[in-house]
């Protein structure tokens, strides 16, 4: 694709500036089931998105057919789209800025025979762990590679590559008529040095500890939310920190800049370039450099995340958080490498101090059970009773309901168990004063 030809043609159509975003994604996925390779998926997709600005109005189009013969059609369609926009939000594309590229270690790719052997061994180890484990439901190994390129008529020309290997496994265990399942996923740098025993132990202990689970009584009780469960809750509520929601007045954090929104024990950071994280984004999907931001400082809201459009609408600068959900979706605002700063105590120490209550290890239904405007949530949970300061019997089929601002304001202690991984949002376990539990 000849970018200059596109830029010239776009200028002729009246575009003040024009951007071409390309994402090449390649994937190999191996699925193993009951002793054999169940499926193998391979893909090669080059997605292209265009953004153009006319009269300070921004339009998007994406196409998987971008031969130069499509150019006139795409440009005239984009020009027509610009005429539809009546919003007074003014837009512009990113000018070239200095970007610091961090050293990234690329994961290796492996031969299909090595991957088959790895999956076979994983399944065998899971089934051999305990006789109550009767099935390895999903067992997948995936290698994904991406190459991201953004060029625009203002002179921006940036490119980066990323890659990740992932293993996903679920195990099912049975005791009498009761069946429980649990799954784990982990990034795999090298299948030969990957700590498979630890992965299998976490998975198997996860499912076995759920057997014999009971439903707790309803009531308001102190809770510790395990790091993985809290990560999922914070990730689901993360739009409240984003300029798009704040600009539209539909974030519970609207108008609360520099005020105390959470407990002073809560500090939140967003840093897409963070070297300790699994993945780094030196620039966002608009080509703006990314940086470390203190989002919440000891409970006080300090930063709202922005892309260029939301920043301009709120008279500020982009924070380098303009990201796309996929290559074809418009640039939105979202966090990348977003975390709650860890405290001093292990989860065991938090339980010992809490004495009695509930340890929530999983939320379900996060796509539906929360209200982004009010911050209210009501979610299916599973976890464990905490008795005499120790993890006791498993708990299932109960709900936890509350409000995210109230919850994060009632923090007793923040755990030390922050662990970076596949999710770019991470939190440690946190002990909260109280949450409404509905069970028996």
């Amino acid at each position, binding site marked *: 694709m000849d970018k200059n030809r596109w830029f010239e043609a776009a200028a002729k159509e009246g575009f003040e500036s024009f951007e071409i975003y390309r994402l090449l994604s390649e994937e190999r996925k191996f699925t193993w089931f009951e002793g*054999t*390779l*169940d*499926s*193998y*998926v*391979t*893909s*090669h*997709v*080059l*997605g292209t998105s265009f953004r153009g600005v006319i009269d300070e109005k921004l*339009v*998007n*189009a*994406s*196409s*998987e*057919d971008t031969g130069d013969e499509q150019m006139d059609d795409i440009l005239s369609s*984009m020009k027509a*789209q*610009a005429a*539809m*926009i*009546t*919003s007074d*939000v003014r837009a512009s594309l990113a000018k070239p800025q200095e970007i610091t590229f961090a050293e990234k270690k690329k994961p290796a790719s492996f031969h*299909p025979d090595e991957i088959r052997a790895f999956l076979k061994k994983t399944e065998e180890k899971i089934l051999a762990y305990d006789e109550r484990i009767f*099935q390895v439901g999903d067992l997948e190994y995936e290698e994904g590679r991406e190459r991201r390129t953004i060029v625009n008529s203002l002179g921006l020309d940036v490119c980066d590559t990323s890659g990740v290997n992932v293993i996903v496994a679920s195990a*099912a265990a049975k005791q009498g008529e009761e*069946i429980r*399942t649990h799954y784990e996923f982990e990034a795999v740098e090298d299948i030969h040095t990957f700590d498979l025993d630890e992965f299998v132990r976490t998975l198997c202990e996860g499912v076995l500890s759920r057997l014999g689970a009971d439903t707790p009584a*309803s*009531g308001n009780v102190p809770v510790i939310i395990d790091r993985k469960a809290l990560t999922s809750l914070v990730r689901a509520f993360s739009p409240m920190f984003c300029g798009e929601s704040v600009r*539209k*007045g*539909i974030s519970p954090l609207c108008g609360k800049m520099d005020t105390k929104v959470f407990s002073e024990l809560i500090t939140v950071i967003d840093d897409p370039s963070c070297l300790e994280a699994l993945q780094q984004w030196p620039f966002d999907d608009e080509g703006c450099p990314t940086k470390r931001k203190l989002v919440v400082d000891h409970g006080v809201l300090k930063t709202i995340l922005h892309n260029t459009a939301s920043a301009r609408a709120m008279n500020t600068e982009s924070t380098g958080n303009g990201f796309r959900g996929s290559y*074809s979706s418009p640039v939105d605002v979202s966090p990348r490498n977003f975390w709650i700063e860890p405290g001093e105590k292990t989860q065991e120490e938090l339980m010992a101090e809490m004495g009695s209550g509930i340890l929530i290890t999983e939320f*379900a*239904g996060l*796509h*539906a*059970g929360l*209200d982004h*405007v*009010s911050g*209210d949530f*009501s*979610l*299916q949970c599973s976890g464990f009773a905490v008795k005499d300061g120790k993890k006791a019997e498993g708990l299932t*089929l*109960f*709900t*936890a*309901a509350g409000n995210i601002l109230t919850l994060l304001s009632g923090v007793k202690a923040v755990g030390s168990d922050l662990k970076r991984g596949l999710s770019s949002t991470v939190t440690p376990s946190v002990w909260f004063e109280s949450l*409404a*539990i*509905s*069970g*028996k």
Partner: protein
Amino acid sequence: MLEKKELEKYLSLCMKSEADFAEIYEEDQISEDIAMLNEQVEKVSRTITRGAGIRLYKGLSSVYAYSNETDEESLTALINDLRGAIGEKQEGRDVVLTRVNYENRHPVKVQFDDVSQDERVKLLVRVCQGAKSVDERIVKVQSGLLNVRQEVQISNSDGRLISDTRVRTRIRANAYAREEGRMQSGFYGPGAGMGLEFYETEIPEEIGKAAAETALVNLRAVDCPSGKMPVVIDNGFGGVIFHEACGHALEATSVSRNQSVFAGKLGKKIASSCVSAVDDGTIPNAWGSQNIDDEGNFQQRRQLIKDGVLTSYMIDTLGGRRMGMASTSSSRRESYQYEPTSRMTNTFITEGTSTFEELFEGIEKGLYAKKMGGGSVNPQTGEFNFSVQEGWLIENGKITVPVKGAALIGSGEEILMNIEKVCSNLKRAEGMCGSVSGSIPTDVGQPAILVSSITVGGTSNG
């Protein structure tokens, strides 16, 4: 789309392997999404999706490759990669294709790009005006108009060559109500497998009003009670209970691997006798309908449960091989980027005999779930959840005060048995269903039902 001769060449190459079946799925889709805040158009996005997915089976194993580069060199490379993975052979049978023609059950009158941009935008302006006309406390309205036209062509080594064009449209409306610093929202998002003629009967102003009314009710909602209680779930999107509590667990995706609570239960009673349910992909112009499934088989109406007895699963070809059963034409996928598997279409509990009033009789304290949100399920344990968007308290058989949204949770096996009464006011509603083969349009539906006991996840433990 590829020509018949090219497809025959590629499929014949696929069969020079240990594969016993090969399939090529081609897709060419255009979609447009217009997003509006109040009466201002904020975003317009057009997306063209064009690519192909190639699948080979060998017994119970499958290999799949997809790309949006469909030139001869790219496709040949993909096929050779798959042949290598499944086992290459120098010899194989030549595939000869025969095109299958049929009558389109889902005709479209007004293609979205046949009307002017101004007219498309005006639909959303009307949504906003409808919402704001309800009450001055409606301070914000976000709306969107999605239009999709997907063309698919499916060919396979059995010699079948068949095409389908799927058109669908949907308006989504979010209304925000504010009073004394408190803000609440309401959502309504009807759609259909139709063109813009849909909005001749589904009036945009009414879509806005419906969203606004839910937001206003939620403004005065009090804390929801918690614990187990009887729940009346209203018709339409209330059917999400069946979709989660039962539907997913009847898909071959989980049944064929013995990962469903309903595996091995054909002919057995799995629900209360007042429950019958179907999955019907043939309803003309419904949101979840198609002429053919994504393996090129004609869509069907499947009677899943009859008077409480399990009568059918939803099965795709590969799942059927595992189960020793025929496909029920239930294979679906979001796009060429997904290998298809068994999925729902328009899935609903059919009409019962109770009146709406009878559902409330004798309930001392319970919940009336008037509007539902989404949910999820673990098919292997049957544990599911779904959220209430607009709920009301039932006290002494009467609907009294609105309560805040809450999750309803339970186990599928138990809940189906706890459906005590089914009303006669069947209604379907549109949603998006996410699973291993992506996000696809499906209808849920039911008449209003009474569930004798279900866990309500409220905040009030008083």
